[in-house]
Every structure is written in C-alpha cells, then in structure tokens.
C-alpha cells in the first residue's frame, strides 16, 4: 500500500470526510483495499498505449440527445413532501450544514 500512486488509507479517509461518511478503522482498511483494487484496474487501462485513439466520453457513440423546451407536469407537492422525514412551511427541513468543509 506504499507503492507510489496507489490509493492510501489517508486518501480514503479524506474522501469519506468530504462525503460526511464516518468510517471505523476496520472499515477504512476494508475500503482502502477494495477501492485500490478498482483503481488498479483503471491503471491497467491507463498503461495501454492509446496514442491515436480519440478520447471517449461515453460508452454509447451518441451525441446531442435533447428534448424540446416544453413544460411537463411535475409531482404534487403534498406527495413530494410526504417522502421527507421532516417538513416545515412546505419546505424540506434538514440539519443545518455550516460551511462546506467538515
């Protein structure tokens, strides 16, 4: 886990804190290993010689999927708010988030 470029436990802890995930030490070890394997696969692909191959943004060779600018009925407000654990003044009530950094 110390080889250069490989995902570290600190990387996982950082990403978890950005997503407000609280991981135990055991979970950090577990996910560091699992995520590293996923990324190892990506490095395998990255190691291929792709000179002359155009970058691919999407698995489907399709561009310009568009819809006309026409209003379509959305959802009834009562139905929407019934899904929320907490509601006040017809708004979603959520825990206060101070700033964006943990």
């Amino acid at each position, binding site marked *: 886990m110390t080889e250069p470029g490989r995902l570290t436990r600190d990387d996982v802890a950082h*990403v978890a804190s*950005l*997503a*407000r995930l609280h991981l135990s030490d055991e979970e950090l070890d577990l996910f560091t290993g699992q995520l590293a394997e996923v990324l190892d696969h990506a490095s395998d692909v990255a190691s291929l010689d792709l000179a002359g191959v155009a970058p691919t*943004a*999407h698995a*489907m060779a*399709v*561009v*310009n*999927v*568009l*819809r*006309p*600018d*026409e*209003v*379509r*009925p*959305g*959802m009834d*407000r009562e139905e*929407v*708010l019934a899904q929320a654990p*907490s509601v*006040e*003044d*017809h*708004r*979603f*009530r*959520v*825990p*206060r*988030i101070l*700033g*964006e*950094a943990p």
Partner: protein
Amino acid sequence: MKPGWEMVVGLEVHCELKTDTKLFCGCPNMFGDEPNTNVCPVCLGLPGSLPVLNQKAVEMAMAIGTALNCEIRPSTFHRKNYFYPDQAKDYQISQYDEPINANGHLDLPDGSRVGIERAHMEEDTGKTTHAGTSGRIHGADYSLVDYNRSGVPLVEIVSAPDMRSSAQARAYATELRAVLVASGASDGKMEEGSMRVDANVSVRRSAGDPFGTRCEIKNLNSVRSLGRSIDYEADRQIALLESGEAVVQQTRHWDEDAGRTVALRSKEEAYDYRYFLEPDLVPLVPDAEWVEAVAATLGMMPATRRARLIDLLIDGGGASEAQVDQVATVVDLGLDDLVVAAVAAGVGSGLALARTANEAATDADAARRLDSGSYVALLTMEGAGTLTATQAKALLVDLLADGGGDPVAMAKARGFEAMSEDSLASTVAEVVVTHPDEWERYCEGGEKGDKLAGFFTGLVMKATRGRANGKAVAVELERLRGS
C-alpha cells in the same frame, strides 16, 4: 486605491436562462412560485430518474457564446460532488474541462477589452433558508429547502483576470448584463438573482509582478455593491501585506450594511469536488450549421446600437458628453428604435435623443410598448414648432399611458393649437409697449440688457397661457430690437 499598488479583478457571473423549463427536466423555470411546486423526480434527485438536456437552453448558451465572441465547442457534462442540501442529488451537473464556450472577449465602452475564459452550462441549486440565526425561529438549528430553482439552467461566464479597477469591473458587469439581455438569453435582473456576480480580487505592487493570492467575494446584489466590495477588499489586502501578513485564499461574504467583506470559508481545492463525467448525459457536439442558425437569430449588440445612435448625431456636430450618456441610457432601456424611427422621419437627432432619454425613459416599460408612429408624429410636431416643448412633454405622458394615439387630435383636444405668426407678433408687440423701461434696457443690449429677453418671454407665455413657442418669441424679440 492606495498609490504603489495595483488591483487585479476577475468576475464570475451566473446568468439564469429564461427558458420555459429547467435544464434537465420539464418542470417550469419560474421565479417566485410557491415552494416545492415546480419539482419532479429529476430535479429532486430521486433514484432512477434520468436527466435529458433542454435544447433551448443549449441554444441560449450558444447565443451568449456568440455574443461574447467565444469559440463554440464540443462539450461534456460532469458531476461536481459536494455535501450541501441545496442539491438533492449531492452533486451539481456542470461543465468542467470541456465547456461549450471558450476564449472570447467583451469590449467595454471605455475601449478596454476583457477576456472571457469560458461560458459554460450548469444547473442552479435549490434555495436554502437557515432557521435559527435569522431570528425568525429562535434556538432552531436547521435549514429549510425549496427545490423550485434546483435544475434551472445557468450559464456561468468566467472573465480573465483583466480588470484593474472597481470602475472597470462595474463597467464590465453593466455591459455584460446588456449583452445577456440583448442576446435574448436572460432578463438580467440582479435583484431577483437571475444575474449573480462573484468577484475574484487580488493586489500586487506593480503590473509586472505575479498575481497575488486572491479572495472571492460573494453576495453582490447590485453593480454598486460590486464596486464597493472590490475597493474594500483591495484595501483590506493591501493593509495586510503592508503590515507583513499574508492574504489567505478564501471566500468572503459582502455585508452591504457594514460595507465590508467577512470570511465565509476556505476555498476548497478543485479536486475536492471529485468531478467525473456525468454517465447519464452524452456529449454535446453542435455542428457549424446549428451554430450559424443560432448566430443568425441574435439581434444587434449594445455596442453596435450605441454606435448607431452616435452616428445619427454627427450631422449636429457630433455627440456631446451629455449626449453620450443619453445614448447609453436609451440603449440600456431598449428605446433606441424610437430614436432611429424619429430621425428617419426627419426629426432632429438631438431632439429625438433628448425626449427619449429624458421623458420616454421615465416610463421605459410603457415606452417600449409605445406605437412608434405616434411618437414620431409627436416629435415631428415639436420639431416643426407646432407644439412647444412643454406641450409635447404633456402629450407624451398621455401617449405613454394610452400606448399610442394621434398627437394632432390630442393637441386639439387640449387646446394646444399653435399660435399663428401674426397672433404671436401682436402679443409680443403688446408686452413691449406696456413695458417701455424694460424694453429700452433690452434694446441697449449688453449682458444685463440681453437677460431681459427672459422677462419678455415670460410675459408672452403668461399672456398666451404657455401656447407660444419659446424659440419663436426669442426670434420675434430679436427682430423688433433690430428694426
């Protein structure tokens, strides 16, 4: 700005597009509706929902890019991940390394050019209201979220760090707003948040130095706040540096009442957003034909429209400084077609510009709806001396209220019939005879004597209850004095 320092300013402007629907779903794009009434599974981020791109929003983004002299490019969408409830998905769909518009510029009225690095598409966030600190609900510690605005199409226009004063930044914001409105993509209402400006400010000792550490200022609700906050922030940074401290890169909030910026949070590094390609959207690749079709729908830009009015004033010896301001007002309010129509019909350009900038502008909404034929007819009557300035202004108020009308009939109904030359001459002769002392002094001329022209004009106006043409009276007085 303190001598020995230079400020460096770049602006990021978020512009809401005036489409009928949101960027990725068919919910109405409407300001001010009841909370959470314009929402659906897509803009609420419900599992299994899929975004589909709004064609009109793309075309408005291309129109903005064209108006800002950008290259319009193949582009992709990314997810910008962050933890905040203003997006129910926990990410915002935005354009990252491949924006639709890049490498443009905007020329300002003072002749300077500001680079446009990019103008990319993204979705707006919902609106969060914090309970507890506002005093509305004491002791509460939570936020309320309305997702009506979530998913509304935005174009974010990022300037190069090319501005060197708050005045230049104000001019850029003003001109950009005019361009956005003229492109048909935005209503440019800063007070409703449909145009939002953030300023990046840094300072340095001289133009050759590398850029200093910058701070980003948010919460700027007017062009005036923009200017004030930039000046404050530059002074704050200079004071720090002169006392040997460092500027910390951070986002700062402009407090309009206190007239200062306060630290909001340390700027997160870009990689913390963990951008990755949005797998649910395919690339956008406009071909030349589409780009040209959008460009063909663009109306004249404000700079061209101002130049068109300035050209009309050349016959009158060129635009004075006051007239340059009048031209700016008229174009900003979208009333320039009235001036052009009047001049084309033979009305003097100075008169057409002045009436439009001074009188029609007082009710610009009505003036934009006004039937230009009746406006031209009114100015023609004033220009020919059939109506005095006072009478023309009074009739214009009625025309604006009614959306048009026949100025000839309206003048008649009000008794605004012009006096015949004979009748005017006899009235002038009468006041001259009844005030022999003043007349003698007037005839002596000189600075004091000439001032009495106003005295006699006043008497004539009184005798005719304002129906006389001031210029005609002056001509008649001069004629009598010389005879």
